[in-house]
């Protein structure tokens, strides 16, 4: 690798093309070809070769070459490829043995036709639109398949035939339930606080501070409690489900379950969906109380309403219907979050980036589903006057 001699030191890094016969050419490489050297662009050399055609023989000489690195064989490969395409013979015997060995190695497995990807063609807008629609249809098909499988697994569960470990269910319940309490406490308390402040200023102008209790408790119980817990759990648990199942897919763990004759839908998806469906309504109930408490904090401290008055007013205005609407919503949201999370996880590709995509898609889908479902339920309730 290190060919150094005093008399060669002075030669600059360069490429010389010299005729050694009517249709024969010598390519002489000189100077330092190691790190830091500036090389003549290989395109220029190929251009000069083009001007000198036709050539029968090209001989590469390296008497005056000093150090070299990978750029030299890469450079020579370009020239060799060019010459082969033109039908010119290349004589490499003037090269040091090391370079010859590397070049032989690099050409030992020639490129097979059809292996190389032709550069991405420019697609028309119509083509892209069609592709998007087809992908959407494919997605919808995946969703329907997943729902079908989940229903079958649930049916097996009802018949007592579903195969999963109860420990898994308890772990999932713990993850989706108790461990979510701190964040749910914080967020719903703050949301109650915000709701109170939003209404308080206007209501106080009419001396109607007591109605802050109505605003906060109705808003929280019917809407914000269910919505906020669902959004929290979509980001917390839905994403975790997608990432867990996706990683298991990457590690072939899901394949392993299948070959053992255990349905991954029953073994992995059921406990997760059940846990979320059981826990989200409970969390929602908890969030409702926290939200009302948050409102109480603002109202009693800043707007001259006693705690007793606040809770009396809240109890008067909120009835069981309002609570059941909130709980029903959170039940629907739980199914949606668990479906989106588990489905994206199960359909995950087999690479690190695919797991990230699955987690993102799970959260985005959950939130879209949640908001759409919420609007529909609210509209229906409005029509039915409940």
């Amino acid at each position, binding site marked *: 690798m290190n060919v150094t001699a005093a008399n060669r030191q002075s030669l600059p890094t360069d490429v010389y093309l010299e005729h050694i016969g009517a249709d024969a050419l010598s390519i002489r490489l000189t100077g330092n070809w190691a790190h830091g050297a500036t090389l003549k*662009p*290989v395109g220029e050399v190929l251009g000069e070769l083009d001007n000198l055609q036709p050539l029968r023989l090209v001989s590469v000489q390296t008497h005056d070459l000093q150090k070299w690195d990978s750029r030299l064989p*890469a450079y020579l*490969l370009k020239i060799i490829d060019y010459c082969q395409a033109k039908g010119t013979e290349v004589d490499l015997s003037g090269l040091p043995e090391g370079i010859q*060995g*590397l070049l032989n190695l690099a050409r030992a*497995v020639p490129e097979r036709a059809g292996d190389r*990807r032709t550069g991405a063609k420019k697609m028309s807008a119509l083509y892209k639109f069609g592709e998007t629609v087809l992908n959407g249809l494919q997605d919808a098909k995946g969703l329907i398949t997943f729902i079908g499988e989940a229903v079958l697994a649930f049916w097996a569960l009802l018949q007592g035939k579903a195969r999963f470990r109860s420990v898994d269910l308890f772990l999932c319940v713990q993850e989706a339930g108790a461990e979510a309490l701190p964040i749910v406490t914080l967020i719903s308390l703050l949301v109650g606080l915000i709701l109170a402040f939003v209404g308080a200023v206007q209501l106080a102008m009419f001396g109607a501070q007591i109605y802050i209790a109505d605003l906060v408790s109705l808003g929280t119980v019917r809407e914000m409690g269910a919505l906020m817990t669902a959004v929290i759990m979509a980001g917390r648990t839905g994403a975790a489900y997608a990432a867990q199942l996706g990683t298991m897919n990457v590690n072939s763990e899901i394949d392993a379950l299948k070959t053992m004759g255990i349905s991954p839908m029953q073994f992995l998806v059921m406990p997760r969906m059940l846990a979320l469906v059981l826990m989200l309504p409970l969390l929602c109930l908890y969030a409702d109380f926290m939200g009302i408490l948050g409102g109480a904090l603002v109202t009693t401290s800043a707007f001259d309403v006693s705690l007793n008055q606040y809770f009396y007013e809240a109890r008067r205005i909120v009835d069981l219907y309002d609570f059941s609407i909130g709980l029903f919503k959170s039940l629907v949201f739980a199914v949606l979050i668990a479906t989106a999370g588990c489905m994206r996880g199960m359909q995950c590709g087999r690479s690190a980036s*695919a797991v990230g995509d699955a987690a993102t898609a799970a959260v985005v889908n959950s939130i879209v589903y949640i908001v759409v479902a919420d609007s529909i339920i609210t509209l229906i309730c409005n029509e039915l006057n409940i």
Partner: protein
Amino acid sequence: MQTPHITVTDLTMAYGDFVIQHGLNFTIDRGDVFIIMGGSGCGKSTLLKHLIGLQRPAKGDVFYNRRNFWQATAEERTKLMRRFGVLYQSGALFSSLTLAENIALPMGEFTDLSRSEIADIMSYKLALVGLAGFEDYYPAEISGGMQKRAGLARAMALDPEILFFDEPSAGLDPVSARLLDDLIIKLKETLGTTIVVVTHELASIFSIGTNSVFLDSETKTMLATGNPKKLLAESKDSKIIQFLTRGEGNVNNEA
């Protein structure tokens, strides 16, 4: 005498209080193909992690050309590490990048080569490992053996002085494993690269190894170091003979 390329002195490896190996002393010369061998779970891959800077020794030192690797500042260590190439067990290609981008990444980060030069070198490295034309494939789209070879191309991207291989032939068919061995030997011969291989493939050990260390999981230390062929011929240790003959060698006959 020539300075050894890598020197390991009194190395102890441990996870917390749990000692994996202790009292490791060996040297690796420039241009060696050094085999780290031993039974499953004896700490071969852990030793590799200590050599390439992923895990700090509990005790002892690793020297590269007399530079103390673990006493150096983080900055110096990064500089030393830049002269390594590492081929991980399953290739460890970045799954979100194409093969071309995988190989070009270290060159783009650490050299001031132009884009076209990088592209030329990248194609050449892929051709070296027999993957000409696969530039635009993603790692998930090629077979495990091809991923491993692409990983080698990436490890070689910066013309490293030392190449580390973690179980290069694991998961390869015998012919591909043999081709990889040939490739390793050719790299050593043409580039003078020092090569460190973790393996328990006997065929590879004897065909490429010029030096080795044998780790034992029971005594938690090395039993021998030297040319594997010599070890087989001269060693009196029953564990080494058993390992190098797949348990078929009769130790009593040797003695």
